[in-house]
């Protein structure tokens, strides 16, 4: 994991979950953190803004989305892949 990406993703999720980043660990799920579907789309929006990426996520079929949100650590990994993918930041989800 890239520490800078991890720190930023932890900080984003912690802010939405009203926690301190130090309270988060990679195996935690957003559900455990009390984030509902609206919290989830807020996290995605914050990630897109912070990293200038476009997150492919459709709430109707989360499993089919190419963005693993099953845990805090999975999200960090998914963001790392998006950031290193060199994809243009135009809004093509």
């Amino acid at each position, binding site marked *: 994991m890239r520490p800078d990406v991890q720190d930023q993703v932890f900080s984003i999720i912690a802010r939405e979950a009203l926690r301190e980043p130090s309270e988060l660990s990679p195996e935690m799920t957003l559900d455990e953190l009390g984030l509902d*579907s*609206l919290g989830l*789309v807020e996290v*995605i*929006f914050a990630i897109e803004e912070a990293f200038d990426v*476009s997150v492919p*996520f*459709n*709430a*109707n*079929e989360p499993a*089919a989305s190419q963005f693993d949100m099953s845990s805090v650590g999975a999200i960090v990994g998914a963001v790392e892949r998006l950031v290193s993918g060199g994809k243009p930041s*135009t*809004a*093509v*989800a």
Partner: protein
Amino acid sequence: MRRVVITGAGTINALGEGVAATKAAMAEGRSGIGPLSFQDVERLSIRIGGQIRGYDASDRFTSAQLAQYDPFTQYALISGAEAMAQAGLEAAPDPARWGCIIGSAGGGHTTANNAYRAVFADQKNRVHPLTVPKLMANAAPSHLSIRYGLQGPSFAVATACASSNHAIGLAFQMVRSGMAEGMLAGGSEAMLNFGGLKAWEGLRVMSPDGCRPFSADRNGMVQGEGAGVFVIETLESAEARGAQPLAEIAGFAMNSDASDIVMPSLDGASAAITGALSDAGMAPEEVGYINAHGTGTAANDRIETAAIRAALGKAADHVAVSSTKALHGHCIGGTGAVELIACLMALGDGVIAPTANYATPDPDCDLDYVPNTARKAQVGAALSNAFAFGGLNAVVALRAI
């Protein structure tokens, strides 16, 4: 209590202009959804919708009118003209006792979008002087009232995707109770512009490739636009004028989930259906067709199915249910009015519009959705469901006449 009927119907939507064109497309299961066309569409990730095509406002309205008419007002006026003509009315027969209620979620959204673009993006320092009266959500009912001399109660209702059903239901209650003698009621929406779609795509509930209600492969809603307007009056006044009733509005119910701002509620939806049946004195077995809210989202279609089962009990096994949103898109505040055309077709023409794009059964959606092909059937009673963001539900019950 006074019996209330619909004596005129009008619409413009992605399926076409007019009730006849809309019914024809519904009966054929022909969709009006396709690639969107407007400024900056290439900056969107969602690029399909049920957009009205081949429409040039300058063909229908003068430049002075267009300075006042946002597209949502234009659509309402076009629909209102068709409805009034069918009812055989040039103006309100009793002006002080006739009014107008139009539902719209976004009102003059295109006008707001264009004004913001002018000042924020184009760095202009002024916008058109009539921007406010053009964008206000009550512009559509106000212009209808001016056009037809409706001097009774007129206003707009904004309950997101249930706006039309709230408008029609309130108009029905006013006429039934004697508060008004006749009403123009319906809904209109014109939110297919860059700002409107950009907001919607942020919610992550839109489908990039199509609306597939109740099908296991559904992946979200597709937005449409358009209007539907109806002339609503007492059976007595219709008969006195020699106007042909298209259907009777038999009951209406509305309630609030009071739970979540976007997630639908089984209890709220089923209570609204039960309430409409009760208001109409209608047994579940009497209902032959339900025009579902059927947005094509994972959550709505599953919960609406369970709500219909909870409200109708065993009768749910024998009722035809379809969502016409796969054809005209989700017209948001105008959608219940456009969908009422499908109810009129079932009750008046004996044709049930299909649920298009139905591909794969979903164990959670186990009703008769009239998949892909219209069906001939004698329908004596129908329901129109609308369940809005904000948890506001509105169900209209109709009978053939």
